[in-house]
């Protein structure tokens, strides 16, 4: 008796056998890329692009921090500049601000103007922070109500904006400026917009 042989799988459908493996491999590659990005800081799942990139810095005028002896900051200071500047939102109560502080100091030592906006802070605390750790800022505005921060689209300190010579915001980073970020993002921007 001849046993009935099942018909062969049509060639067109044979690749389907490999599909689960392919899907798993693609998922693995994606997951690996995500982990790599997370560890290098280039991928932030909570990161949100700024709506202000490519636009003029918003209109604002902020009073100085008296104890620091620095001039305040206004939109007028961000127009027609001899070189690009960084605008850094920070507060003495913010832990990542302590982490990024050495990088800001380094930028300021290298002659890059770093303008600070002190967000929802007590003047005495802010002055104490700068006296203890050093002051990287060329100008410092005080935004006690946090209203100017909203105009910039800030959703948490620290946030750093790169403003070109014409006063256009070219880049924004929410979070602490790390040495890697300084090397991979900020330095190239400084060269590009010098």
């Amino acid at each position, binding site marked *: *008796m*001849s046993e*009935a042989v099942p018909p062969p799988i*049509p060639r067109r459908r044979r690749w389907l056998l490999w599909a689960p493996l392919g899907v798993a491999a693609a998922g693995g590659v994606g997951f690996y890329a995500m982990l790599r990005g997370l560890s290098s800081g280039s991928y932030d799942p*909570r990161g*949100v*692009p*700024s*709506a*202000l990139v490519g636009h003029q810095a*918003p209109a604002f005028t902020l009073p100085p921090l008296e104890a620091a002896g620095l001039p305040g900051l206004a939109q007028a200071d961000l127009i027609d500049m001899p070189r690009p500047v960084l605008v850094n939102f920070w507060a003495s109560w913010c832990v990542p601000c302590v982490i990024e502080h050495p990088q800001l100091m380094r930028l300021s030592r290298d002659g890059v103007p770093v303008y600070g906006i002190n967000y*929802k802070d007590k003047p005495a605390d802010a002055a104490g922070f700068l006296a203890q750790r050093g002051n990287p800022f060329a100008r410092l505005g005080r935004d006690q109500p*946090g*209203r100017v921060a*909203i*105009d*910039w*689209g800030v*959703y*948490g300190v620290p946030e750093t904006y790169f403003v070109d010579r014409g006063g256009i915001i070219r880049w924004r980073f929410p979070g602490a400026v790390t040495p890697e970020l300084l090397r991979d993002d900020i330095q190239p921007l400084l060269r590009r917009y010098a």
Partner: protein
Amino acid sequence: MRALLFAALLLFPALQAQAIGKPEDMLADPAAEARAREIGRELRCMVCQNQSIEESEADMARDLRLLVREQVARGASNHQVTAYIHARYGDFILLRPPFNTATLLLWGAPLLVLLGGGIVVALRSRTPRAATAPLTEAERQRLADITGDRQA
């Protein structure tokens, strides 16, 4: 005035239950306050990300709640208030994403899936199924044995 407000709050327990914000942050005019909430419920809290600014306890959400109320009290329309905040925070702040080039894929995905499915169905129905070979004599015999239906 304060007593009146308190009486109004007592009269509207539903309003109290909804309010996350401190009572002193709320607008005195209930109609304006309702409008501010309507606007706020459509705005994402950027800190908590899955809550609206009306539901969130974050400082940032409170700042935005106050900003919305300030503008509502000034007589700005719902659209004007939303546009003001959208200009600063971008699409992400809107809990209902708008239709634009960046969200084209998001809104178009259901249509694409439907289209893809339609193509598969159309292709499959066009190719004729391979004709099934007729049963051999042995198979027919076995089938008859199984069904107990002898008619050979």
